[in-house]
């Protein structure tokens, strides 16, 4: 196995494109180094991207917050403007692991590791975040929701890697929230996760909604029926009930030791209602 630490994006994509066998990006390493210790792990190449300028930066631009692929989750909560604009995203990322993990783990890693239970991903999808993808033929953008294709697999092509997440500038009365269910108080894998972003009209009715579910299907899902149940309405009990029911209907979880199908389908509706209420309050709704 080779370890490379390129100084430019072009060098990184060239290394990845030239690799004959399996290659991995190293940013925070909190998933990769665990996998490296397995006997089955085999890699030709590890590309550490942390020497590439910008990878460790959070920059506020006209497009929104550009969060480099190597920004650790702990740095998100230290960025006041980001916390003010997207508290749900920051809270979701801060749920990952312990203090020690927070000092290293990244949202891009959480996304590209492609666990269905990744905590930051539903929050990012609800926030309508996009990713910048570097590749041998240049940079392209994609929606976060289109990156994971199933457990452990992504839509990235050979030679490509995600260089940054772009969170839009939250306009007007916008609020977001992420909630998950775990059987302990912290440091566990989501049994159910729900991210909600709401934008309100002047009269506090819901102008637009994005509701994303994690851990209840092979990949994160955006539930349009749930959003439709809220749009145009105040956040009434009836609207919330319909929204939660749409989430339960959309969920297609597995039975495993952490939760049954019936449990997950019920809890996803409960969490969606609670997350929507928090997002509504954060958006300034009364």
């Amino acid at each position, binding site marked *: 196995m080779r370890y490379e*630490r390129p100084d430019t994006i072009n060098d990184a994509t060239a290394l990845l494109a030239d690799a004959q066998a399996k290659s991995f990006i190293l940013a925070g*390493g909190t998933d990769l180094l665990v996998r490296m210790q397995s006997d089955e792990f085999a890699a030709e190449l590890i590309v550490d991207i942390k020497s590439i300028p910008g990878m460790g930066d959070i920059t506020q631009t006209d497009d929104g917050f550009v969060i480099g692929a190597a920004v650790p989750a702990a740095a998100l909560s230290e960025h006041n403007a980001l916390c003010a604009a997207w508290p749900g995203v920051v809270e979701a990322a801060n749920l990952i692991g312990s203090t020690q993990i927070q000092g290293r783990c990244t949202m891009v890693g959480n996304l590209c590791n492609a666990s269905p239970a990744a905590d930051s991903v539903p929050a990012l999808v609800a926030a309508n975040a996009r990713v910048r993808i570097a590749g041998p033929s240049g940079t392209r953008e994609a929606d976060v929701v289109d990156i994971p294709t199933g457990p452990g697999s992504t839509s990235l092509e050979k030679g490509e890697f995600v260089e940054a997440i772009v969170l839009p500038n939250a306009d007007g009365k916008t609020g977001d929230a992420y909630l998950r269910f775990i059987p302990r108080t912290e440091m566990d894998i989501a049994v159910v996760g729900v991210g909600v972003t709401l934008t309100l009209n002047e009269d506090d009715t819901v102008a637009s909604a994005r509701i994303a579910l994690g851990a209840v299907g092979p990949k994160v899902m955006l539930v349009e029926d749930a959003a439709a149940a809220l749009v145009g309405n105040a956040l009434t009990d009836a609207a919330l009930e319909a929204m939660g029911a749409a989430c339960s209907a959309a969920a297609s979880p597995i039975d495993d030791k952490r939760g049954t199908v019936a449990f997950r389908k019920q809890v996803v509706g409960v969490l969606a209602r609670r997350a929507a209420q928090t997002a509504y309050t954060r958006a300034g709704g009364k």
Partner: protein
Amino acid sequence: MSSIAVSTTINDDDVEFLCQPDETLLDVLRNRLGLMGAKEGCGTGDCGACSTIMDGRVVCSCLVLGAEAQGKTIETIEGMANGSELHPLQTKFIEHAALQCGVCTPGFLMAAKALLDTNPNPTETEIRFWLAGNLCRCTGYDKIVRAVQDAAAEMRGEPA
């Protein structure tokens, strides 16, 4: 696999070492540099026994490659005392009997130091959440939390 030459700073000393591409920082500290304070408990980032401070953030050194230490500033338990003068956290761990077998202790001390470096007056809840990535299987957490609270008070200059 060819060795990688790494220049880094550990406990204020310039250090150079050679390591393999897949070698963890924990293995470098213990096996190449003779710094045996960081312990390998799980090797997968769950137990915190290998906690070290890298560029101001507490990390599991089992989840850092040795090669990643290039150009970094690393603090380990060996640099915590000032010569024969213990750090207040170390003194308070002894006073409160916040250790028994001691395997988790270096990790707890490094994590607690990272907390007090950034937050000199943490609440008990903040201490418990901060230290949730450090597992102790014999002493119990209460004595550890009391020791951290007491050390923080002393470091703030408050009367005991």
